[in-house]
């Protein structure tokens, strides 16, 4: 993968100046590359990975397996795009295997998520069935460890 993308994927808050030093390029070049990646849609956005357990806000997340009937013209796309348009849906994937769409849904509490699945998702025309699995604890998200700080077994000083 492009070295610049690799760095941004692990830490999108690195400044252009820092990225330039890390990559051995000048700042202008980096700035231009990022602009191009954004314009062409390779980079779709930037977001923070938050440990919800440490914030004041209550959040509940669930994985939902969805079976759907593909539509004649658009296949799975139309229905997947429709599901994706709900703000409660954090991610949506077309899957191989026993079900069709794998989505993550978040809400303020169990009831909130359940209601979304029962009243908004399940009734969509073409949705055959849903199976909901609530997340109990997150350990890693988007390549970032959510657990306590990584420990360094090495001593302070060695030859």
């Amino acid at each position, binding site marked *: 993968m492009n*070295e610049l993308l690799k*760095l941004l994927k692990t*830490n999108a808050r690195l400044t252009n100046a*820092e990225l330039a*030093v*890390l*990559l*051995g390029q000048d700042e202008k070049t980096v700035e231009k590359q990022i602009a191009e990646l954004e314009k062409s849609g390779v980079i779709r956005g930037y977001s923070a990975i938050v440990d919800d357990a440490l914030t004041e806000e209550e959040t509940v997340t669930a994985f939902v397996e969805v079976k759907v009937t593909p539509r004649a013209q658009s296949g799975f796309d139309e229905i997947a795009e429709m599901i994706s348009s709900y703000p409660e849906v954090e991610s949506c994937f077309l899957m191989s295997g026993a079900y069709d769409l794998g989505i993550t849904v978040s809400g303020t509490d169990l009831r909130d998520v359940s209601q979304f699945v029962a009243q908004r998702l399940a009734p969509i025309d073409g949705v055959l069935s849903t199976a909901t699995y609530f997340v109990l604890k997150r350990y890693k998200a988007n390549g970032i460890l959510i657990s306590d700080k990584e420990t*360094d077994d*090495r*001593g*302070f*000083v*060695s*030859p």
Partner: protein
Amino acid sequence: MIDYDKVVSKTAREMKPSGIRKFFDIAQTLEGVISLGVGEPDFHTPWKIRQAAIDNLEKGKTSYTSNSGLMELRKEVASYFQATIETGYDPASEIIITVGGSEAIDASIRALVEPGDEVLIVEPCFVCYTPLVELAGGVPVAIATKEENGFRLTADELKEKLTDKTKMLILPYPNNPTGAIMRKEDLDEIANVLRDTNVAVVSDEIYSELTYGAKHCSIAQCDGMKERTIVINGFSKGFAMTGWRLGFMAGPKEIITHILKIHQYAIMCSPTTSQFAAVEGLRKCRGEVLKMVEEYNMRRRYVVDGFNKLGLNCFTPEGAFYVFPSIKSTGLSSEEFCEKLLYSKKVAVVPGDAFGKSGEGYIRVSYAYSLGHLKEALGRIGEFLEEIR
């Protein structure tokens, strides 16, 4: 009462503890220390290597290997030398698998050095050469390299210290602590000085996988040098296998035969599980090594830039995972600088003089740390410099 001065040998009593150790001890007593002092990779050993170790343990392959090491590993090492430094060695008679590079260094010195022999040691360098030479009764002779020469050894510096008593040159490149490397043309000049002598070269190439830009080159590749060179390498740094204690050495069989006797009596054989794991490492993990090198390279650029911006002039290293910035502009000695930095900002770095007198005026900083860690440490060093200026 027992008089331990009469129990412990004079040589052992007079041996100085490593200057690195002292800082480790202080750092351990303080809370919240962040370190840039570690000389080992922060990466885990590649998974395939660990898996191979587990598989062989499960099969119960835990007996001694032959003294010089598993034949299949020696064969892999031979192909590795062929591929990397384009030098052929016979796995049956010219290669030994050792307990880290350290054992290979010790055994080479013990096999070659007689009491009174002079051993040329290129400084600044790793801390073990001088004590090991003294243990063998040899006389260590330091050759100080200079920053203006990129910390490379020059032919003139070598000639100046060469005498009738010179037995060996210890050539540690890529270098710990400076990060300097020797290019083929630099090595050729050294080779020209040594070619018609009986001086042997111990080339410690433990950091050979970790070069940035220029490919590693060994003095064994220079005309007429293979016959007098012992090449030492290992898995610790490049393959992130420090705790496995596994190194290897190659040289002319007329020398290796005698080193093997020392290895056989002192060690028997290197750890069997580590040897099986290393076979997998050489066969399948070069790609992972390259990934680590890319990561080190980014950090190297970041740290060099960081020190230069802080006003501590920093030589751009081309190998290993250390930078060696000059702290002369602060007016402090290396030792003072490191102690003050440790107590006031809780950042542990190693004073340059721990690596020989010529390291005075410098500090060794390891970048075998995550970017976030390096950023935090550089920030603290910046605050420290503001305060003392």
